[in-house]
Structures are given as structure tokens and as C-alpha cells.
């Protein structure tokens, strides 16, 4: 149960918004951080915290590609397929990843390491084609770079080619 484990965090999240329902996305992130994906139990619990119905939580989860309804691998590769990246070859990139990983988008490799997803714009249009792996961005991708990234991740669990996490809005306290 999230409520017991993350009581302080949930209270802090709820305190940020004048409308309770606004806390939906941060709570879903919390739930996803906990299990790697958003479970049914988590959706029900969040609904009860926010005093909304489970279908209202569910519709939100299904709208956003960054929220997973199924377990994902250790590395969740999200490839941008929106127009800007498509113009500079995101489909080639995706095809290359499919070959290298041996899976189609939406699936996870047998060893449980990689999950491949196609997602909408990740707001790095100037540096396409690009992808996000877990919290990190990888930009201006080429086939060689992709190979190196996959090898790095397999070997070290991280890669020096990452350009870092997307800048989350800084909290402005007070």
C-alpha cells in the first residue's frame, strides 16, 4: 500500500495543489516508481486518496505513454516518433533497435533488460532522432551510437552517451 509506505511524500504532493485531483499525475509517478508500472491496486488506491473513481485514474494512465500499465524491462527505451524526429529518420532508428533487440515496439526482451516503446514528442526536436531510456535522453542518434548505448547499458547499467535527464521544472519553494 502506497499510503503506508509513502505517507510523507503523498502528503507533500497533496499540499501542492488547491484541487485534490491535480495530484493525480505525481501520485501515478510515485506508484510507477514503486512497482515499475502502475498496478490496478495502485490505481484504486490513488482513486481513493483523491476521492475520484478508478475509471478516472485509468483514463489518465492510458493517455500518457510515460505511464506503463504492464511491467517493463530494466531499461525502458522510448523512441520519439513525432514529426520532427520522423523527418530525420526516427523510423530507421526504430527499425535498427528492433533488429538489435529482436523485439517489436511494446515488447520486452526475454532477458528482461529492454522494453521498446514508440512515443509522441519528447520535446527535444532540435536534436532528433532521439530516445529516452528510463530518465535519460539520448540525442542525435546514429546506428553506431545506438549499438554503443545498448552495449554500455548491458555491461555497466549506464552509458556515457546520455545527455542527462530531461529538465524537470525546479520546485520553487516560498
Amino acid at each position, binding site marked *: 500500500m502506497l499510503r503506508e509506505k509513502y505517507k510523507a511524500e503523498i502528503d507533500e504532493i497533496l499540499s501542492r495543489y488547491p484541487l485534490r485531483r491535480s495530484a493525480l499525475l505525481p501520485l501515478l509517478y510515485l506508484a510507477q516508481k514503486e512497482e515499475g508500472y502502475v498496478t*490496478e491496486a495502485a*490505481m484504486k488506491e490513488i*482513486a*481513493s486518496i483523491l*476521492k*475520484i*473513481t*478508478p*475509471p*478516472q485514474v*485509468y*483514463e489518465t494512465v*492510458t*493517455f500518457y505513454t510515460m505511464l506503463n*500499465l504492464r511491467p517493463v524491462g530494466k531499461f525502458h527505451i522510448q523512441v520519439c516518433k513525432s514529426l520532427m524526429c520522423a523527418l530525420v529518420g526516427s523510423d530507421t532508428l526504430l527499425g535498427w533497435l528492433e533488429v538489435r533487440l529482436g523485439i517489436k515496439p511494446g515488447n520486452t526482451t526475454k532477458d528482461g533488460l529492454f522494453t521498446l516503446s514508440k512515443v509522441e514528442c519528447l520535446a527535444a526536436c532540435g536534436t532528433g532522432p532521439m530516445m529516452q531510456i528510463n530518465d535519460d535522453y539520448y540525442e542525435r542518434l546514429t546506428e553506431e551510437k545506438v549499438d554503443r548505448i545498448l552495449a554500455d547499458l548491458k555491461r555497466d547499467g549506464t552509458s556515457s552517451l546520455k545527455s542527462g535527464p530531461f529538465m524537470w521544472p525546479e520546485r520553487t519553494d516560498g
Partner: protein
Amino acid sequence: MVETVKLTIDGHHITVPKGTLVIEAARQVGVMVPHFCYHPKLKPDANCRMCLVEIEKMPKLQTACSTPAAEGMVVRTATTVVNEAHKSVLEFILANHPLDCPVCDQGGRCDLQDFSHEYTPTTSRFIEVKRVFPKEYFSPLIETQMNRCVQCLRCVRYCDEVMDVKALAPSGRGTMTEIKHFTHHELDCEFCGGCVQICPVGAITSRLSMYEFRPWMLKRADTVCTYCGDGCQITIQTKENQLIEVMSAQGAGRNNGDLCARGFFGYHVSTHPDRLQHPLIRRNGELVQATWEDALEWVAETAIRLKLAHGPNAFGGLIGARCTNEDLYLFQKFMRLVVGTNNIDSSARYGQINGVRALRRVQGTSRWTVTFDDIVSAEALLLVGTNVTETNPITGLKVKEAVKKRQATLLTIEALEPAVGTISNIANLAAHHFSVQPDGFKPAVLGLIKAVVEENLVSQPLAQKAPGYVQAVSEAVRRLSWQAIERATGSSSQSFIDATRSFTRTARAVILVGQGVLRAPDGSGLTATLLDLLLLTGHHGLPGCGVAPLAEENNDQGAVEMGAALEYLPGPSDANDQAARARLAQAWKEELPKGPGKSLMEMIEGARTGSLKAMFIVGENPAGSLPPSAGTMEALQSLDLLVCQELFLTETARLAHVVLPACSYAEKDGTFTNTEGHVQSVRHAIELIGESRPDWEILSALSVLMGYPLEYGDAKEIFKEIRSLIPGYGLLGPAPTPPRPDQAVVESYLKTGYSSGLAERYTLGERRAASGERKDFSLTLLVTQTLFHSGKFSTRAKGLLQVQAEGAFSLNPADGTRLGLAEGDRVRVSNDLGEMTTTVKLQDRVPVGLALFPEHFDQEARRLLRVSTDPATQVPYYKSASVKVEKAK
């Protein structure tokens, strides 16, 4: 004065109130702008883009559904550009629509079909494969076929904005958006059928009528639903005398086209295979089939013999308030003239009488002084013991509309905890909610009155006009301490003060009184106290303000107004009102029987002691409603003559000497009077089942055989007579015109009338142990109505049985933990009267210390109940008991 704007639509000039949407303005001049996502009940969403129109001086096409009309606007809806836009929108929708019209139940009344015929070329530029959603089981009553969906989201918005249920989720995004419930779970909701009705295409349809019809095959009858006092207009659609479906057109009736599960899915009762099709007569202890002639003659002969031997007052009559006004009127006339007794009662005795008594006493009306429209436009609403969503769902929608759309302040005093669940919960919308046990309704109301008095919120004109009254009430509430009120209600004095302040500062206030008050001890007194509240705040008598006791059965109000009660003559007039008696005697050309008459409980008592020898029971089942401790079975068994007019062989009918098959509401004509006092026409939708007959016809035939003919050609003739005798039955308009409080009665109440019973009304009463103090295994059992059934009648509707087929013992999860009970556990519930075994259901909305059990399945639960009778109103109370709960072995 409403501000208006002038605009031109396709050359028509029109003036509309400011804020009217262009699409609505267009409709008013007869121009239909095609649309999917727009619906007058919902907020504009403008997602389907179908309603694009050209507006002069605007650079691009505009959506007519979200553009408010403005002064001097020139709108064109049928230009080449607009038509091209319609075409392209349809081309996009049809890119994915499966065009499976031949197997789609919507075929023939589908907006997409109609617009496609009107606007689309027969070819499409799309060559891509259409989207296909995997077929999922959605629910036992509602079918989804998502490939057909045009994603207008009307269903989702209706479920949220109108119903406040929020059970539908548009899952996914873009073209792949699909209407679901919660992940792969089947739908669990109020099953109001609103999504089926509002879907413009065949994406959401009813499973009860799947593949059975094409719209043009159906015969339609506009009639009135029989499942609660709201009196919703429904259209029953039939094919070859089979009930196919029920719908309610947008804007129709008092319900404005909205229905609940009972109205939408509960229609199969009328054609249930158990319907009685022939008269039955008891021979050698068995009920056997007989002809109408034999049965009626036997009844008439026996009745005449008993009347000669024991006199007319050895007879009693009881009628169900599900009958039409015509049935009710003729029944009391039959009892009063043909039999010659005032021993008449109806199921309005179970509660409605309490409300009517209070209204008559304080303001001299027998009806509401408000209408549903006043609920919608109220600024403050107080609900006391209503559980309105489950007992009067459509009145509930009016409250929701007032709160959600018009920002009314809602105060609720309910045995409900605010909690989100699969069905809506009115307490969630309340600005001030007092969650109390049923015995806390009165203390909470007194808390509000105390706050009015102590915060100097008493209306000044009233204080000047009736200083004695104000002083008496003020003293009465000052004697109550806040500590005692806080203890009895669990709410702080401040919360009463806050609630009262927000109530008194409004100009339009309506108080709804529910079954929790009316069907509980001293229901009449508490209703009168609520009228006191309205008098003190100065709202009483103002337009749009009033106290409104909710009727439980569809014609509870009619039963009282037709005089189907010992204390009322048709009108209703008091039975000892000499002027009314004389008027009626003149109209009936016969003297009325004298004497006080017996109420339901007195008749049962009379039957038990042998002073009552015969009973006519029409459409009512006391043996199945009253608990066994009332001894109804034994009493009825000792009668020399028991005649039942029934649809089914009920517990009472099984005891009868003769059972006469009556027809259901779907087979007869007549009128019902709904809870707000609106008289509406009932029209037959199917032919009579078997040899069944309307109740009035049976009574009329009996009257002839008993030598006092009450003959009428049809129900209309009876209605003509009703119309000449009873005010308020003259014109059947689209909306009721409520009576105004009788100032003479109000003044006499303020002068002296208030004082009788004042001391009892203004005490907190005995209090059961509050939940926190309970150490033992006891709970208060409350036998209540649920949303999915209406009495025992609807338990024969196959659609409703799919949603709720048995009773469960609902209690708060905290009580579950305290008693060591989990969801689905079997429990033994007992007290000194008996015991029952049932299943546990944990529900957040049930207050701690309380347990609910649906009355529709109370065959066993009734054993635990004790009856007490109100000495003043003769209303029997038997809905609550103290019980011990333990896990069944």
C-alpha cells in the same frame, strides 16, 4: 429582464437570450446543424467538429455547439464550404467506422447513418486498414461495440456531468480511444442506461433487446414509470405485444429524458411467465383455476352474506399505491358505497400519509408547494433522510443539477458517509453534511433550528407577526444543550451554525424529506419541524421555496388525493369535513358511511380478533411487506373472505379465497400523480395478458353483482368524475402548477396550532449507543430500498436481477474489522425475534454502527423486525432493529 441578442441564421432573424449557443438558436428557427458530441444536457466539448458553420467576419468555420450567439451575428449553415467541411469530418469518422449497419441495433435511428446519407460521397480516400478493437465483455445489461464509436464522449460526459457516477473512461488516445470501465473489469455502475440513450451511434446498446428489432418495427406508447414517486415519462416500445425496450426522449416528461436502472432496464415484469392469467378460487384448500363468472359471483354472494350477518364494518379494504388514480378512486368509492365502510387504507399509509399530514397541518396543502424545476433553481437544498439516489433517482438528478450546474448549496442530513463508490452518493456533493444514524435525523434538524435562533437568523417579519410562536420555538430549542445535540449527531455546534448561515442567506430554499424520516417514528412531527425551520428562516411561502416529502411509490400521492384512506375523502378532504361530505354525497347521490374507519394495522388487528370478517386487497401484499411479528399471516388466514386482485401469487394472494388477475401498468390506461403532485397519463403499451383485467374494471363488475352498480365505459369516464370532484386534476399540462400555502392555515398554525405536540417535537429523544461506545457485537439493522429495485415488484424484472439478485448485509469496513468480517463472509444476524444468515458486503458509505439490508430481498430479514404503530397517524414502523452479528459457522 433577460438580456437578448439578435442574429441571423440562414436568412432567419431570431432573438435569443444572451449566452444561447448558435446550434440551439439554429434549432429554434428549424435549422438542424449536424452534430455528434453536442447535447443540450452537457457542457459543450466541440470535439467532433461536425457542427462547423460559417459566421460572417470570422476568419474560419466555427463550431456552432460552442459559439454563443452574439448581436448581429450572421450564420450560414448550408454553404459549399460548410458542406465540404461536413464531408471531410465524416470521411475521417468513416475511415474507421465498420459500416456494420446490418447487424447494428442502432440502424434506422443512427446519427452517423443519417448524416452520411446527407453529406458524404460514397467513396473515401482512405485505403488504410480500419482500426479493430478486440471485443470485450462489458456488462450484463450494456453492450459496447467500440469499432462503431465516433469518440464524441457524450457517454463519458453524461456519466460524469449528469449522473455524477464517473464509471466510464475513455482509455487510450486519438483514434485508438476506447470507452471502458476500469481496465478489463466489467462495468459496475448505476446502470441508468444514459450512455445507451445518449450514444449517437451503435457503440453502446442495450443487451436486453439485442438483435430483436429495427426501430420502424416498434409500436410506441408514452406512459409513466411505476417504480418510484418521481413519475418519469417513458416510451415503451413493443413488437407483436412483446416488450422490446424502454426509452425516454430528450426533454420528455418531468425527468427530461433521464431514467434510472429501474426505469430503463426493469420493464420485463409485465410479461413475466408467473403472471396470473386466470381467476383462482379456493376449493378444498387449494387455489384452482376458475372462470371470471364463477369467481366474481362467489365473491359477490359471500360478501353479501357476510355483510348481512356482520354489517359493513366487518369489511376492510387495502389498495396498493401502484394502482392508477382511477383504480384508487373507484376502490374507495366501492368500499364506501357498495360495501359501506370507511375501513379503507392504501400503501401510502407506510409513509406518505406522514408527509401529507404535516403539510396539511402547517400550510393547508396536501401537495408540494414546489416543483422539480424549483429544486433545480434552488440556491440552497436541505436533504433529510432521503438517500435520494437510491429511492428517488430522478429527484436526485435535479439535486445534482442544482449543485453541479447552478452551484446551489447542498445540506444533507443522511445516514450516509461521503465516499466514492460505484454508484453516486449525494453526500459527496454536500457543502455541509451531517452523517447520522437514523435516530439522529431529528437532533440534527433541531441543531439547525437552534442555530437559527441563537445566531439571530430568525426572519424579522415572522418575529413581528407571530411573536408567541417564535418565542415558544426559541425556548424549546434553547432548552436543548449543544452538548446533547453534538452527542446525538456527532457534529459540532459550529458545523450547525455554518450550515444554517449558508442556508439562511439564500433566497430560494427547498427541503426534501425522505423515507428515512417519513417511514420512521414520528415522521409527521419531524416533517412539521422542518416546516418550522422554513418558517423561521423566512423562506416559507416565498416563490420556489417549500418542504417536499418524497413519495416512495409511483402513486402514493394519488392514493391520498383519491381518498383511499380512512381519514380522507377524495380531494383530499378530512373524512369528518361536513361540507366535503355533503358535496360528495350530492355527487355520488348517496350518503357516505359514518364512523371512524380502520387503518391497515387496525384492520389486521380486527382480523386477528375476529371483528373483521372480510378484506378486499388490491395490488398490495401486507403479508409480504410487514414482518412476521405483526401476525399478518395468521390474521388474514382467519378471515371468512379474502379477495386479492394481483399480478402474481404473492404471500398475501396465497392466503386468499379468491385471486382475481389484475393487469399491470403496461396494459392499462389511466393517470398517476407523482411526488410533486403532477398528474400524468398512463397509456397501455401491450394487450392484456391472459384473462387479466384492470383493477377498476374488476371492482366495477363486482359492484354490479353486489347490487350497487358503479359502471364506467373506460378509465377516462372515471377520470372525468375525479376531475369534477378534486381540484388539481383539471388540466394535465406538461408541468404541475403547485398550490400556494393556505395563509389562513399558516396563520392559525402560528397562532395556536404549533403548540400541540411541540414538547415532543423539540426533544432529542432516546438515543441508541453511538458506534464508538459499542463493545459488543451489535449493530443497528436498517432495511432499506436500493437503487436497483422497487418493492418486491421489480424482483421479477430479469434485467434488474442481473444487477442485483439477492440481498447482502452492508456495513462499514471499520465495523467489518471490529467484528472480524471480510467481504463475502457469511454472517449470522440475530436478535430476540429470530435470525438470518446472509453475506457481508463492506461499503464505505454505510456509517459505522449501521448495517443495511435491501427490503426487496427481506424474506428472512423481516423476521428480525418489530412493528410499532404511530398513535397519531397509524403509520406502521418496522424498518429497523438492533441485531447481533457473528460469523456463520
